[in-house]
C-alpha cells in the first residue's frame, strides 16, 4: 500500500518567515494533492500536482513535485497568521474497486504575529 510521510509534524514560525513542508511517498505519485484544514473545519483543496518537476503557485504558497514523483514540497513565503492550520498531502490510489485518496499525517502550522 502507498504511504505518505509528512515532515515536520508541527511547525511554529514568526510572521513574515518562509517555511517548507515536505511529503514523501513510498511509491511513485500519480496525483498529489495539498489540502489545508483549519481547526474544527473541513479540508480545503489547495493544489494538485501530477507531472514530474511540476510547480504550481497560489498567492504565497508554492507546491512542487520532484522529477522522480516521490516527493512534494509546499513552500509558504512571508507567512501570515492566516496561513496557520493543518496542511495535509494526499495521493491518488487506484484500486480495482475505484480510486481514492490516501493522506499523510498532516503538519500543524502555527504563525505567531
Amino acid at each position, binding site marked *: 500500500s502507498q504511504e505518505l510521510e509528512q515532515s515536520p509534524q508541527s511547525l511554529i514560525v514568526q510572521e513574515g518567515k518562509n517555511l517548507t513542508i515536505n511529503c514523501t511517498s513510498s511509491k511513485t505519485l500519480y496525483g498529489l494533492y495539498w489540502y489545508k484544514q483549519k481547526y474544527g*473545519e473541513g479540508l480545503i483543496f489547495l493544489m494538485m500536482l501530477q507531472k514530474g518537476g511540476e510547480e504550481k503557485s497560489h498567492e504565497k504558497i508554492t507546491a512542487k513535485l520532484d522529477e522522480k514523483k516521490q516527493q512534494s514540497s509546499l513552500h509558504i513565503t512571508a507567512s501570515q497568521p492566516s496561513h496557520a492550520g493543518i496542511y495535509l498531502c494526499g495521493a491518488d490510489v487506484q484500486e480495482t474497486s475505484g480510486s481514492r485518496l490516501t493522506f499523510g499525517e498532516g503538519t500543524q502550522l502555527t504563525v505567531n504575529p
Partner: protein
Amino acid sequence: NAGVTQTPKFRVLKTGQSMTLLCAQDMNHEYMYWYRQDPGMGLRLIHYSVGEGTTAKGEVPDGYNVSRLKKQNFLLGLESAAPSQTSVYFCASRLPGGPQETQYFGPGTRLLVL
C-alpha cells in the same frame, strides 16, 4: 449549491449505542468517501462508494457499515459504538477521472463515545 453537508455536527454516545451519520452532496458526484481523523494519524479512509448501490472497504472499516441507496447520500452507521470510535468524521465526494479532479469535503462530525 450547498456542496457536501454532514449531519449531525456533534454527537455524544454511550458505549454500545448505535447511530447513523448522514452525508449529502448536491454536485452529482459519483464517488463518496467516509474518513475519520485522529490526532497524529491524519485522515484514514473507512469506506467509500464509486456509485449508487456500491460500497467498498477502506483502511479502517471494522465497526462501521455504510449504504449508498441514493447517489446524493452516503450513510455511515455505527451498530455498537466503542470509545475507540471517538473521532472527527469527514465525508467527501468527487468526480472520477480527469487531471483536474478534486475532492470536496464536508465540515465534519465530532463524535464522542463515553
